[in-house]
């Protein structure tokens, strides 16, 4: 029974990893652009959720949507005010710009919210379901379900809709897309909005289970990068699978080998897999 509990726990954790990685992979897939501020978007999502609960009230649906909208607007704003310009610069400038953005957001959060750890008050997601001897924390279940829906939604958006085709066209060849009458800036601003918005959803859902402070973005940012690299840069489905795999391996190795070995196992396997398959699980060969 414990084994089943460990596996279920690992998969739920993995779904959350996938959830906060999807936005990162989206920006890479659309723009070949690495966003080091992604973990900070998740962090801001958590604070938006907290502020919403404190000022407006309402249940999880309210603060998750508030976080999604707030971060969508922030993502679009950051694209229009910063990324649009640095993307024409050299690779190094692009990398450092989002790195600087990450530090700016993190330390602004320290300034505004202070360094104290905060938690969301108990919400309707605070309970636990018991299913045949297995404990399922509701917050993680919902986060897992949303992760899968959001990932599939993004996947369908990219592969089945006109907007998706336009986004992909811009990613493929900016000049050619412009000749077809697509406005690349609009599409890429949309991609940034969607990526930041999904990070906001991830943050708001994580906030129901995890205490945080402004430096939480570092922890999540690192995991997101590993998930995206394992899944294959740019593949939304890949990061879902990668998240589930990493969560599962972490949970199992922590239970059987001990908590301090779980990251050795995960990153060991990660390096081995990239050695065999540098493009990741579902990435295209470079």
């Amino acid at each position: 029974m414990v084994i089943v509990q460990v596996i279920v726990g690992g998969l739920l954790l993995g779904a959350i990893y996938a959830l906060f990685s999807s936005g990162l992979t989206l920006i890479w897939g659309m723009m070949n652009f690495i966003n080091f501020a992604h973990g900070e978007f998740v962090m801001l999502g958590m604070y938006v959720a907290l502020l919403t609960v404190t000022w407006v009230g309402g249940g999880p649906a309210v603060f998750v949507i508030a976080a999604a909208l707030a971060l969508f607007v922030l993502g679009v704003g950051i694209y229009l005010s910063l990324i649009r310009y640095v993307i024409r610069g050299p690779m190094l400038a692009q990398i450092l710009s989002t790195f600087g953005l990450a530090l700016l957001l993190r330390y602004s959060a320290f300034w505004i919210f202070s360094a104290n750890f905060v938690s969301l008050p108990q919400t309707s997601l605070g309970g636990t379901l018991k299913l045949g001897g297995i404990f399922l924390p509701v917050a993680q279940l919902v986060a897992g379900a949303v992760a899968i829906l959001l990932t599939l939604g993004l996947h369908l958006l990219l592969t089945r809709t006109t907007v998706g085709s336009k986004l992909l066209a811009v990613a493929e060849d900016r000049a050619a897309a412009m000749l077809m009458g697509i406005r690349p800036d609009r599409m890429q601003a949309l991609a940034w909005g969607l990526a930041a918005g999904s990070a906001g959803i991830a943050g708001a859902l994580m906030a129901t289970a995890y205490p945080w402070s402004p430096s939480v973005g570092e922890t999540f940012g690192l995991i997101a990068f590993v998930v995206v690299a394992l899944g294959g840069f740019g593949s939304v489905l890949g990061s879902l699978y990668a998240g589930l795999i990493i969560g599962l391996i972490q949970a199992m190795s922590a239970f059987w080998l001990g908590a301090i070995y779980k990251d050795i196992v995960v990153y060991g396997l990660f390096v081995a897999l990239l050695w065999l398959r540098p493009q990741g699980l579902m990435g295209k060969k470079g």
Partner: protein
Amino acid sequence: MKKSSLRFAALGAVAAALIAGPPAQAADAVKIGILWPLTGNAAAAGQASKAAIEVALDIINNAHPELGNLPLAATAGLPNLGGAKLEVTFVDHEGNPATAQQLATRLITQDKVNVLMGAYQSSCTFTATAVAERYGVPFMVGESSALNITTRGFKWTFRATPIATDYARTYMRFFADMKAQGKKIGSIAVVNENTDYGTSVGDAIVAEAGNAKLPVAIRIPYSASSTDVSAQVLQLKEKQPDVVIFISYTADAILYMKTMKNLDYKPTMVLGDDSGFSDPSFIPATSDIAKGVMNRSAWSPGKPDSTTFKINEMYKAKTGRDLDDTSARNMQSFFALADAINRAGSTDPEKIRDALTKTDLKPNQLMMGYQGVKFDDTGQNILAATYLIQLHGTHFELVWPQDAATAPLRWPMGGWAQ
């Protein structure tokens, strides 16, 4: 302005400086460099301690006769140094031992501080004290508890706070007391974060449990930055120890309490080793799911007219929160350091070191529940001690030892029960 008048102005300035020279020198501020995690995972603790030191600075630098026997409170500045003020430079090592090492060097060589203090995480204190030793600058360890900080034969490191072995022995005395009262403690579990702090306290507890013939059912080291602790809680659930001792920082301590509830695991008692359990964020996040959780603290605000109560009020006025044990131990260490500097009557490192070795503060001169402050050859305070406290409602009550208790012990813990 002409050249000649410039020269006159310069001469005048030099003359003024010469005349003002000696008295100004006598009251020159004493520079203290303090290294803490002001950002990063332990930032909350660092910021809380910083606020505590700012209150201590107010107490020392200004006259506070209402604070009774507390050394240096009644006078403004340090009387033996002509009323010199203390001036503190806070630096942020982010919880990184390498950064702590670099910053300690910078404080000594560039900022020319007279003494150092810090550094919260034992791993950071370990590297920073080594720098102070090399340069011959006194280092007051504020509250880091790893044993190995004072076992290197250092001459310049002093520590007023109790350490891992003091705590481990207190826990064993407490367990023996409980057993004598007929409570069942068949085995314990030790869950520790895996840097110097958690490892050394964990080691000390396992060693003392061995001496006390108390079985340790399982020991679980883990990383404090874990985003998930379900596997660890499931391991505990399998072993069924009666008491689980957590040596954890803030986010992980809260996460453990939430995960234990989620996975329906409640041992007879949870005993937190200060740190995360004393963080101001702990109670609001867990008060309804961690009822009766125990913790240790050498700090208790006491009765309304006491010195400790007034200090707590000053801290509250500044931060809006009660003073916590971690910050209070830092504050006490700072008072002990200031007392030594005053007795040295000089900013000369050698003289301050001498004064530190001769420190002998009595319980009525302290804000903490120690039996005094007196350093042995290793620099460790041999009179340090601690109380055990328990979460009752939304605050901790002193519950052990019984003669100091402000409320009765609740055994077993309630956890999330209504």
